[in-house]
């Protein structure tokens, strides 16, 4: 247990301590929740960048909680994939907290918002960092319960209904995951993911692994909003407050859904050709259906929610290819999507903050009155549509090339078609919301307050600079290290136990 591994528990301790203190004293000191929220998220961001550096030096870091060796106690593992997810989650979280300092002035009892936000962040960091299957379920439950309450934060009619539907489907997904864990425990009699990988490799293929794969696919597929289980997302995201829908769409469905699918199917159960073709099929299905449903939408946030489903389809398609280039493209698109999708939701939040409506037909010509929101959403729309200089283009390009290389021409064609439809849909957004004639000149349309503006500008800069991640120097520090962890498959178990010693 190397001394550098001491930092791993702090990814969970800092947000938990912040949430508990906010809940304890947040009501009396009005300004404390904001300060605590910003401080802990910025601290986590710095810690995650340090973790990328540590992983570059020593590959895999293992921390055994309570000084018990992993198969007996709970081990926490920080490898390339975990540090990649930590950076993605904490970058978006820090900027979204910055945004919500101004946005949440409209809401009552702000301390509950920040406490739940930090708990959701603790849940996501816990899922990414843990090396134990049941511990992953517990932190998945923390993040989900916090997001159920946050979706219903505005206590309006529609939000309560959307939150209830999301909560019921989320609980059913957790039940399937727990049932899968019971089967795996009975079969391998251990809960540690590395130990389980070794035992499953030794025991070879069996019916249990097939059933557990289906259960996990249903459970985590629902958390990742893949098509057959996507029904909750178009209701939950628009009714949540803007910072929360940015977090939900940006990172929650990725860290709870896609990361868990990726870690369990590649590193624990082992990726069989059947499961990878299932990934490909579900990915392509989500990609196409998400875009087709998004075309006809006039409510801006609902349109963005449908696009989230289709972009998640890209990521799962990339991961399903199981080729080095495909996984690299999938992970890179995961990072890009969480950046530009949360930027788009923040833009819709600032539009709603100014005009009070989400309906594209009621907006018009806002570029003159809200230049910052206009330009940042222009940047985000171009990068989601995949226009060259921006980060969305590079990751979609890699996925399509990988699909062609893997001789999956059908999926490559669907990817290109979905990208074109996304472009069409976002030109519609830009035309109706920002260009065209300003509707009622008289009404004073103020630009977003200062914190919201600089949050959006920060995200837009990441969108523009995202392409640099592919540059040969930076790529093998960040992206290829994560892709190698995914590619190594079942060697994950031996890697972890080498470090445990």
């Amino acid at each position, binding site marked *: 247990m190397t001394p550098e591994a001491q930092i791993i528990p702090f990814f969970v301790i800092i947000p*938990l301590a912040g*949430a*508990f203190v906010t*809940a304890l004293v947040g*009501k009396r000191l009005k300004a404390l929740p904001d300060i605590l929220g910003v401080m802990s998220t910025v601290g986590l961001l710095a810690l995650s960048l340090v973790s990328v550096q540590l992983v570059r030096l020593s590959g895999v870091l293992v921390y055994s*909680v*309570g000084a*018990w060796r992993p*198969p*007996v*106690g*709970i081990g926490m593992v920080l490898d390339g994939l975990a540090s990649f997810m930590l950076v993605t989650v904490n970058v978006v979280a820090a900027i979204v907290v910055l945004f919500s300092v101004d946005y949440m002035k*409209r*809401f*009552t*009892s702000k301390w*509950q*918002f920040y*406490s*739940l936000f930090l*708990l959701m962040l*603790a*849940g996501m960091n*816990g899922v990414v960092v*843990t090396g*134990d299957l*049941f*511990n992953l379920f*517990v*932190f998945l*439950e*923390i993040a989900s*319960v*916090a997001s*159920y*309450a*946050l979706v*219903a*934060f*505005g*206590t*309006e009619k529609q*939000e*309560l209904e959307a*939150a209830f539907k999301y909560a019921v489907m989320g609980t059913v997904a957790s039940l399937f995951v727990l049932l899968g864990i019971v*089967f795996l425990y*009975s*079969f*391998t*009699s*251990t*809960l*540690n993911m590395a130990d389980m990988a070794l*035992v499953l490799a030794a025991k070879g293929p*069996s*019916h*249990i692994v*097939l*059933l557990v794969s*289906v259960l996990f696919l249903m459970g985590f597929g629902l958390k990742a909003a893949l098509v057959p289980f996507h029904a909750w997302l178009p209701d939950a995201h628009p009714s949540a407050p803007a910072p929360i829908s940015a977090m939900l769409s940006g990172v929650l469905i990725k860290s709870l859904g896609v990361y868990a699918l990726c870690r369990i199917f590649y590193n624990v159960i082992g990726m069989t050709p059947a499961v990878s073709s299932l990934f490909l099929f579900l990915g392509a299905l989500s990609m196409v259906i998400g875009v087709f449903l998004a075309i006809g939408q006039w409510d801006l946030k609902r349109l963005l929610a449908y696009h989230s489903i289709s972009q998640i389809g890209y990521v799962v398609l990339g991961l399903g290819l199981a080729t080095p280039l495909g996984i690299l493209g999938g992970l890179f698109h995961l990072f890009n999507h969480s950046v530009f999708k949360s930027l788009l939701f923040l833009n819709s939040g600032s539009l709603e903050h100014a005009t009070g409506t989400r309906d594209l037909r009621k907006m018009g010509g806002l570029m003159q009155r809200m230049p910052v929101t206009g330009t940042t959403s222009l940047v985000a729309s171009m990068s989601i549509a995949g226009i060259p200089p921006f980060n969305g283009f590079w990751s979609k390009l890699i996925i399509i090339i990988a699909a062609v290389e893997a001789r999956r021409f059908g999926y490559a064609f669907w990817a290109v078609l979905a990208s074109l439809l996304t472009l069409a849909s976002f030109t519609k957004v830009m035309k109706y919301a920002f260009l065209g004639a300003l509707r009622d000149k008289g009404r004073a349309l103020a630009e977003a307050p200062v914190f919201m503006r600089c949050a959006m500008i920060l995200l837009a800069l990441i969108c523009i600079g995202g392409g640099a991640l592919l540059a040969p120097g930076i790529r093998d520090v960040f992206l290829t290290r994560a892709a190698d962890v995914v590619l190594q498959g079942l060697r994950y178990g031996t890697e972890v136990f080498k470090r445990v010693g």
Partner: protein
Amino acid sequence: MLELYILLVFMIVGAIIAIEVKDLLSSVVAVGAVGLALSMAFLILKAPDVAITQLVVELLALIILIRATLKRDLPFSTSGRWFFNTFVTVAFIAVFLMAAVRCFGDLPAFGHPIMRVGSTYLQEGLRRTGATNIVAAVILDFRAFDTLGEATVLFTAVIGVLAVVRRTGRKSEGQVIEED
């Protein structure tokens, strides 16, 4: 093991009653009966910790559920959803059951678990943690991180309930509401 079979059949019948009965209050009471049978089953399976917690937690869940259904008992409309939905649900459950039953063969037989990690807890539990109740040792020392996560789930649920039940979510333009 005969009493386990009886309890399980009782629970299945109780669950079916809880689902099919029209009146909400009697459905909640039927779930209470299922929970009580579950607590007895835990006792028979030599899990006293879990039996106490299940009984007590179920009591509180029932009180909360009854609080939700009191005076709100609507004349329940009997028309269920249309046929297609029933067919899909029953088909999905049948497939799921057959797949699960087929792969029970791979699991170790009932009553003979392969206790790879469990045996280390039993042997070293008393010596290394000093607690005679091994389950408490596992919860609070071997896997204490789980319990921290779990206490946080309850904490999140409490803050979540407080956030959901508050009177007004959004302040109207500029009006300051004293928060409860």
